[in-house]
């Protein structure tokens, strides 16, 4: 039985395809995952409270630039790099140190090569929604050569991300000390895992891999190049699972904030070797 079709049986309409598998599950889960994190991170950033408990500091708020000491669950003044909350801060915005922080990892993830794939597929204009699934028609598709040219700044976001790895690792280290006493709590384990996962994600970044050695053509031309080849090879190992690192670290950084928030609010009890 013959039926009339467009050339080759390929329809041109948006989302048309002949695939019989559930190709849409991946983009849907991506959309739900990114949306859930975006909603939670925005909500958490606007709280401006319950981000500190004992020796635990939420990664959404680290480092603390200014501190509003009157807010519940906030650290003492000496924790803040620049002291008390400034008078110039606009009155309509809550006094939340997270506003100074989240823009950096946010830009790093937004321009990340993995996340670009993820949201180009799952968020309108869906370029494309799936492989061999027709993209939304555009007058003139320009890819990342015009409006999205800023994606090329990913490496600058990387430089900040590397600084954050050092800061969050220091936070994780400090979380094992409370009032000068070495100990361990569930929160310190959570923060240690958080710093490790974020390091795995950041050090497997495509830009990092390029800068550390990928930009060379000859790996054996000098001892310096040989060292960079070794580092490039290690970054390549992480890069192969960049998507996994991206999702696990995203989930865990949100979980770390939630855990400290719950403990700070008294909803959860933190099991630890200290007495509080």
């Amino acid at each position, binding site marked *: *039985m*013959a*039926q*009339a*079709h467009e*050339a*080759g*049986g*390929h329809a041109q309409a948006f989302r048309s*395809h*002949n*695939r*019989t*598998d559930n190709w849409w599950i991946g983009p849907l889960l991506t959309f739900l995952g990114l949306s859930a994190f975006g909603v939670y991170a925005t909500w958490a950033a606007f709280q401006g409270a319950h981000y500190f408990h004992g020796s635990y500091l939420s990664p959404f708020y680290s480092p603390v630039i200014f501190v509003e000491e009157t807010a519940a669950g906030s650290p003492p003044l000496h924790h803040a790099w620049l002291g008390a909350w400034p008078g110039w801060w606009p009155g309509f915005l809550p006094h939340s140190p997270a506003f100074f922080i989240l823009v950096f990892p946010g830009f790093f993830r937004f321009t990340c*090569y993995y996340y*670009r*794939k993820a949201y*180009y*597929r799952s968020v309108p204009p869906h*370029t*494309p929604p799936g*492989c*061999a699934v*027709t*993209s939304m*028609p*555009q007058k003139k*598709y*320009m*890819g*990342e*050569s015009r409006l*999205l*040219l800023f994606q*090329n*700044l*990913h*490496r600058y976001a990387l430089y900040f991300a590397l600084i954050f790895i050092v800061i969050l690792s220091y936070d994780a280290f400090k979380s094992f000390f409370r009032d000068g006493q070495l100990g361990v709590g569930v929160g310190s384990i959570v923060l240690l895992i958080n710093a490790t996962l974020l390091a795995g994600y950041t050090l497997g970044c*495509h*830009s990092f891999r*390029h*800068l550390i050695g*990928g*930009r*060379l*053509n*000859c*790996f*054996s*031309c000098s001892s310096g*190049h*040989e060292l960079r*080849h070794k580092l490039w090879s290690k970054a390549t190992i992480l*890069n*192969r699972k*960049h998507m996994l690192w991206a999702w696990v670290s995203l989930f865990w950084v949100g979980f770390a904030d939630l855990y400290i928030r719950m403990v700070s609010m008294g909803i959860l009890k933190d099991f630890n070797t200290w007495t509080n």
Partner: protein
Amino acid sequence: MAERKFRVWRSDAENKDAGSFVDYTIDVDSGMVVLDAIHRIQAHQANDLAVRWNCKAGKCGSCSMEINGRPKLACMNRLNEYDPAETITVQPLKSFPIIKDLVTDVSWNFEQNQKIAPFKPKLPEADGQYRMKQADTDRVQEFRKCIECYLCQNVCHVLRDHQQKDNFVGPRFMIRLASLEMHPLDRADRIPQIRKEFGSGMCNITKCCTEVCPEHINITDNGIIPLKERVVDRYYDPVMWMWNKITGGDKQG
């Protein structure tokens, strides 16, 4: 022997851009691949069915087509991957003009290949020899696995849906460019061409090319993204631009 249903694209005799799906039911044997089924249809029910094939071993890249909407090599796609009750739909590649039935004209790809500046070796060593270490060749050897099946070119939405063949050379040739640019003995500079003429910025790295590659070449992560990063080095990173000016970095290995 069991029966299986196929829905195969047949072009009109007079107008190759027009056509229709035609249903065929054939007996199949265990172990058959889609190309075997096409050949059986050709032998018993449609002697004029056109299909391009050669090695039947996944190494010549001739039998590229779309099977149940997914770009694949028909010779490497076993029938037992599909539910026995399922009708298998077979179509020509979408991104290239149809010659007849399942055969497309992929000559545009050969034209792109000719635009690429060929390998330009450095001067040989004092004894007249060229030497490379394995560490230097590992990376480019991956790209040499390409069998030019053009499944990546076909699935790339820039070419497939947005018809940007004048502005983007496609994943297969980004890989060829990567193999030359990363070659330790090559001294040609293709970065300006990669950015402008070959359109590295048109790729939004959605990785469909990598997903369909039958040789499992990591096209996006190992080829296209490193080229995009080299373009950033040259055109979008003021710090790197300055560094290269001071150290002559672009001319170094």
